[in-house]
């Protein structure tokens, strides 16, 4: 944790709240999404600079997944606008999806393909040259070379998550959206994935992370936003927290404040770190 924060402190002193030094990787203006009478997002305005490891935090049903789905062109907003790497995800969703990687929460590779075949499929869809070389590289990096030719339905949950991480990064995108990246991974692999995510952003790429696990956000993120009931309630740079402060306390305060106003009731237990058993 400290290693990451030190490195980020040296390399990327940029947070979304003070963004503006370069073109944002992601920018939303008054993004709103309603489903009938229910409001999933309300006037969400965000700016995520390039190179940021950005965390979107919030309780269940706060609009995190909807935000990612709109930014990747899977859903259209009811109103408002968004730009992702300079493209409009509403007008040209395929352009956005070509240039980003997406890892939804609890997504498995296709049951009856092997990891190798699934990544070959992703290579076709994304028009990747030399896909077999990329597959070998990512299988080594994420430790699933031994299971490259095992049907995905027979892999453990952690092994499937590694394959999904590989499909997210295999085309070397400039921007990645990840919903809960560490779920189902053992502690050693969690540490390796965290390092990978940090290295990825250190190379100037942008990562948009949605997570419940505040300790992960505290360790990794260079900027976080907290949403509640679809509204942005706070932005924060975790590195600016005092030595006796925890993001969890900050989060609780924001959510509790919302519940006092009739918003979402804060969860009494917010897990600090995902484990193999958190599926």
């Amino acid at each position, binding site marked *: 944790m400290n290693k990451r924060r030190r490195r980020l402190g040296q390399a990327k002193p940029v947070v979304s709240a003070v963004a503006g030094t370069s073109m944002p990787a992601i920018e939303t203006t008054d993004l709103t999404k309603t489903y009938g009478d229910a409001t999933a997002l309300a006037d969400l305005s965000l700016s995520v600079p390039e190179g940021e490891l950005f965390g979107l935090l919030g309780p269940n049903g706060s609009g995190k997944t909807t935000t990612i789905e709109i930014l990747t062109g*899977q859903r259209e907003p009811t109103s408002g606008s968004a730009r992702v790497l300079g493209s409009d995800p509403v007008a040209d969703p395929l352009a956005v999806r*070509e240039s980003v990687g997406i890892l939804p929460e609890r997504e498995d590779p296709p*049951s*009856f393909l*092997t990891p190798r075949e699934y990544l070959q499929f992703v290579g*076709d*869809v994304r028009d990747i040259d030399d896909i077999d070389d990329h597959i070998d590289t990512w299988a080594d990096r994420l430790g699933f070379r031994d299971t490259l030719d*095992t049907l995905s339905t027979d892999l453990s949950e952690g092994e499937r998550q590694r394959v999904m991480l590989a499909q997210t990064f295999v085309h070397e995108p400039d921007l990645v959206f990840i919903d809960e990246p560490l779920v189902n991974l053992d502690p050693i692999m969690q540490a390796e994935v965290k390092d990978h995510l940090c290295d990825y952003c250190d190379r100037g790429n942008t990562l948009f992370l949605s997570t419940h696990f505040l300790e992960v956000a505290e360790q990794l993120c260079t900027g976080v936003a907290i949403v509640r009931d679809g509204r942005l309630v706070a932005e924060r740079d975790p590195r600016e927290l005092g030595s006796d402060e925890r993001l969890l306390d900050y989060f609780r305060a924001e959510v509790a404040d919302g519940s006092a106003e009739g918003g979402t009731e804060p969860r009494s237990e917010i897990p600090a770190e995902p484990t193999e058993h958190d599926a």
Partner: protein
Amino acid sequence: MTGASTRGLLGRMIREEYRLHSELFGDRFAAFPLLVAAISGAGFWLLTLTDVGVGAVAVGVHGLVFFFGLQVGSIGLVGRDALRDVLGDVTLLVFSARTLPVTWRRLLAVFLLKDLLYYSVLFLGPLAAGYAVFAVTAGVPAGDVGLLYLTTAATFAYGAGTSLTAAGVATRSRIARLGLLVGAVAVTAATVAGQVDPVAVSPLAFYDSPSVATAAAGFGPVLALSVLGPLTFRPADGGTARSSPDRYSRVRAQLSDDTGVATRTMLEVARSSGSVWKVLFSMGVLFGVTALLVREVGRATALDPSPGIAFGTLLGLGAFTTYSWVTQFDDRREYLRYPLSMDAVFAGKRRAFLVLSVPAGYAYLALSLLWVPLTEVVLGAVVFPLVAVYVFGVTAYVTGLSPNELLFDTPLFAAFGAALALVSLPLVVTALTYTEAPTTSLAVALAVSVAGAVVGAALAGRAGPRWAATGR
């Protein structure tokens, strides 16, 4: 396990089945029996407008119910993969032998009984009610309607027991599977040669001529298969990780598939339960039922139906099951995460659909050469792929990548059924009237098939944009 707890298990399985359907299809599922009654009533009424007699209708009902039993009997076992993909990690009570103190055999026996009771009430009851209106107006005694309900229920059990036994034998060994295949071919050949009459050893025999002898001959096999199924079935050992050599590149090259969607689909169908044989099996059952219907209609009426048009039409309609196989593992939202248009997705699905269904249909048409004239077979070979293209287009447009939602989504089911009837009813009529007006029937059959294919292709082209926009 005590008798009381067996009854408890049966009750829980019935509740589980209902909740499974409710989860899949929502509250609309409750209206499904009414729709079955309405559709069957309307269908029987339409038949009164033709020369088709009550006897032929009864034969057709038994044939369709047998086919339905085959499908239902296999869905909990062969279709487990699909359930898992639709609902996540589903664990049905029938698979609970590893965690409950109850044997596989007892679980499967209760599972079969559950299917019989559940579908007798929700499907066969409404079907019999629809038939009753038609039959009473045709002068059939009410007792015969009750008899039809009894024998269709037994026929349903016959189909479900056949599925379970076949699946059970297939789990034993490769030799057992080969034996199963040889046995199926032998029975088919003997039937074609006229040496075996499958009707004589089915509940239909008792319906045709109730007696102690026909009861024994008709219900005996049902009972035997209901016992054999649970005795022979062995669950697959899930403890071994199955590896597979890389087939993706080879299949992709063979299909000239640039997006990989068709390749992926073919591999999924081939590796899931039942492999590509499930395509052959489901179309084979329909082929057999059609052959039986054509024969019985010829016997029971003055009509001499065209087997070519009949085979072409029903095999084309039967390609719907292939559509469900090629989409059973799909989640539309997954494709929305790739830089891939839904047009490309449906194009890939269409290619896999045609690669699987057309050779299977042609194989059965070739088999029919044993007793059907070549010109008729050629006619069937023209009609079949055209109808299949129509079925693909309608199914893709109406249901997207979730065709199984049709089963109990009442409004969707009605719309889909009406769309299929638009093409299939004229074709069935031309098949029935072929000998009386061959030129006209032929012209109408070809015109309807070609028009259907054109409409199907157009609908398939519009399915991509439609389903890309849906839910955004």
